[in-house]
Structures are given as C-alpha cells and as structure tokens.
C-alpha cells in the first residue's frame, strides 16, 4: 500500500479503462465550430434527465468504451449476453429514445441529429441506427420484471417507441446548478489518485445518506487499499429518495468528523439510477473502473428497489464473469449493524449474536423518526448526519 508524495506518481500503476482507452467525445476547436454551425439546421431531439446524464458520461469517458448511444446490434448483444459484440462485459442498455411528441421519420440514418435540452444544443449524434425495441423484453431481461410499479419499467413506459443509435459529439458538458465543486471526470479522478500516490482505490456507490453500516463497510475496505472514493449518484432518482443536495451535506459532515481526509475523496457520479439490481451492480463497477478505481463495494441489494431482487443477487451475478474480463475487484459485504453484545459494528459474517442485540432500523422506521424530528440512535446514524436529515425533513423533503 502506498500513500506517497508526488515523487511517487510515476511509480503508480493505474487500472486501465474498460476497453483499454478513456473515450473522449467532447469536441473542440474547428470541429466544434463546424458542428455548431450545422447543428442549428439539423433535426432536433430532446434529451430527458437520464439521457442528459448519459451523454455527459459518454462524453467524458465514464462509459468507456461506449462512444455514443447503442445501435440495435450492441443493444441486442447487451440484453442477450451481457457483453458488447466484441466481447467486453456490459450489462445495461444505454439508449436514446424518440419522445412521444417527436416524429421518428425526421431522423434519417446516415445523417446527424442535434441533441437538445430545451433550446440549448448540447451536441450531435451521427445517426447509424433507428429501430423499434421490444420494451417488454428489455424490462424482462434487464430489470427482471415487467411490473409497472418498478421505476425502471415505468421509465420504459414513459419514453417513445423508437430508439436511435450512433456515436455522439458533445459541445459542452451539461450545466449543473449544484455540487460543481465535487464534479470530477474520470481523467480528473485518475490524476487525483496518482497525485495522492494511491495504487488501489475502492469506490463506494450510494444513492442514500451514509449510515453507520455503510461507514463500516467503507472502512473495512479502506483497511486493504490505499484510498476510498465516495461516489454518490446524483442523477435522476425516484420519488422518495433523499435529494442529492441533502445527501451531500450528510457526506460532508461525516467526512469532516469521522474520516481520515488524506485517505478519502468524495466526488459525485452523474448517472441516473436504473434500479436494475444485479445488472446495474456490474455496470456500476465497470464505470468506476473508468474513474480509476481498482475495487468496488457491493453490499446488500445493490441498486435494488422494493423486493424485485434477492438480497445478494447483485453479488452473485459477478460469478457470471471472469475476474480478468471485469478487472475491477468487487468487495462483497453482508448486512452490517451495531451489536450491543460485541460492542462494535459487525456483520452477519462476524457477529455470533442474535437480532435482539443488533441496532437496526428499516428505511420506513428511519423516515418516520426523521419526520417526527427524532434522531435515530447514534449506533445507527452519526448524530451530525441525523441533524442534517431532521432539518431537511422539517423543510419538507422525504
């Protein structure tokens, strides 16, 4: 393990991006000027929140080796085999849909399409493919359900029935109103890790505040690597999830009070949630590899929602890939809690005592307590985090 100075930078071996190269689809200079000039006369397509997040991630290489939205060949390969056509693992479709109020016939393969958000033209797609997917089959294969109550299925029902595929050229990253001091692209996190002298970095993905159990998993992982990247997802989530700005305040107070700052970095992950459980766990791991992470924490029901997936299905799916083809190392953790008999944080693997000795609260119970202005016990949540959440609930979130 290392925590070396800048002098050690050249000795730091970094994990390769997925596919071997960090994609860059941001255009500049004359290419950008030429495309911008043409873009205003092109047929336009509006991007929804997920697609906006996806073009940002494709543009900065977070989704390497993807260079654009999937064509039908790639889409089918991902759905049926969880691999790209050339053989690299990839588990989630990354698609661009024609909106219900847009005419698919205006988009012609072989020509370009302007990628828009309102009046802003963010980039251009070089249209290679246009087709009507079987969205029920996509839901079944990717989300393992066609229940419309599943947020991912609801999303598929909300988008149009025609997909467009092709490489993209992006003029500017989408503008964000918040958390800009925490937005690091893969090339930036890689420079950061090297400058800190970290060869091994574990990433922690979350869409929730960090409670004692998560803190425990992270610190267990940090015992065996050089650095920890707390990488909260801040793209589109479902109603009922804690807003990203509230979560960031939770992370800030936690890091300030309980984490060694020379071993931990926090940066936001701009992706939208798919709630695809197992397949999304693989996706999350591969994308963190692009950010330069060598390890990835997978806990209970990773990227799950409701009861659609088995508690540890998101860990079992890693058995369907070889270690070499994933390259990033998953760190699996079971249910963690504070045990009053042990007198410390533990998990189902390391604690011999029964549930009556464990301090555990369901998500519903936590929300009820916070809504009443009541802080969960310090064995469950750090008091500083609880204060942020209580204040947020008083203002009407959650």
């Amino acid at each position: 393990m290392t925590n070396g100075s800048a002098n050690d930078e050249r000795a730091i071996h970094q994990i390769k991006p997925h596919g071997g190269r960090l994609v860059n689809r941001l255009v500049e200079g004359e290419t950008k000027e030429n495309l911008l000039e043409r873009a205003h006369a092109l047929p336009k397509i509006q991007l929804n929140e997920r697609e906006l997040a996806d073009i940002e991630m494709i543009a900065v290489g977070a989704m390497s080796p993807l260079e654009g939205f999937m064509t039908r060949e790639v889409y089918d390969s991902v759905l049926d085999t969880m691999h790209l056509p050339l053989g690299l693992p990839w588990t989630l479709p990354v698609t661009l849909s024609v909106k219900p109020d847009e005419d698919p016939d205006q988009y012609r393969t072989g020509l370009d399409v302007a990628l828009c958000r309102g009046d802003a033209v963010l980039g251009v797609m070089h249209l290679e493919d246009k087709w009507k997917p079987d969205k029920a089959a996509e839901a079944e294969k990717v989300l393992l359900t066609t229940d419309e109550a599943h947020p991912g299925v609801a999303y598929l029902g909300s988008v149009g029935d025609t997909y467009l595929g092709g490489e993209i050229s992006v003029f500017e990253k989408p503008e964000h109103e918040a958390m800009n001091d925490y937005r690091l692209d893969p090339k930036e996190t890689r420079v950061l890790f090297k400058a800190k002298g970290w060869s091994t970095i574990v990433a922690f993905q979350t869409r929730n505040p960090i409670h004692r159990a998560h803190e425990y998993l992270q610190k267990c992982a940090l015992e065996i690597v050089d650095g920890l990247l707390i990488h909260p997802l801040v793209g589109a989530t479902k109603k009922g999830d804690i807003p990203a700005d509230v979560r960031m305040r939770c992370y800030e107070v936690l890091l300030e009070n309980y984490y060694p700052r020379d071993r931990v970095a926090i940066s936001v992950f701009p992706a939208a949630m798919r709630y695809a459980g197992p397949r999304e766990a693989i996706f999350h791991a591969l994308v963190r590899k692009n950010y330069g992470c060598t390890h990835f924490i997978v806990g209970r029901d990773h990227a799950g929602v409701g009861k659609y997936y088995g508690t540890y299905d998101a860990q079992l799916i890693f058995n369907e890939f070889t270690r070499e083809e994933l390259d990033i190392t998953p760190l699996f953790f079971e249910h963690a809690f504070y045990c009053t008999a042990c007198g410390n944080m533990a998990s189902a693997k390391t604690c011999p005592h029964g549930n009556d000795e464990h301090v555990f609260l369901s998500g519903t119970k936590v929300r009820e307590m916070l809504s009443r202005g009541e802080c969960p016990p310090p064995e469950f949540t750090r008091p500083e985090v609880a204060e942020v959440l209580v204040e947020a609930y008083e203002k009407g979130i959650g």
Partner: protein
Amino acid sequence: MPEPRVTIKIPRPLYERIQRSIEGSGFSSVTDFIVYVLRDVMSGAGHRDERGELTREELDAIKERLKNLGYL
C-alpha cells in the same frame, strides 16, 4: 448464459510455450489467456491514441483545479 465459442487452431509449440508461461499467473487455461490478450488487442489498447494521453498543459490544468477545489 455462457457465450457461444468457436475453435481456433494454433501451432502446438506455441500452445505449449503459452502453457508454460502462464503457470502461476492467475490464468486457469491457455484459452483464458488467449481470449484476454485478443480482447485487449481488439479494444485498441495497444494503439497509442493521440487523445488518450494528457498533455503537460492538460495535466497542470487538472491539478490546478484539484488544488482549487481542495482535493490536493
């Protein structure tokens, strides 16, 4: 679901050389090693993409941003 495979022939001396080389390497078979190498080649990892490496200016700009944000 396991992905479909095809059979490819290579010279036996080459096969045996690879077999000796991968002992203790973590690759469980010559097949696994060859698949790994070919995927790497096909992904263009061996090709020096002129946009893949950061220039000195880009690296300095990133480090400056990281310092201003308090990461370094």
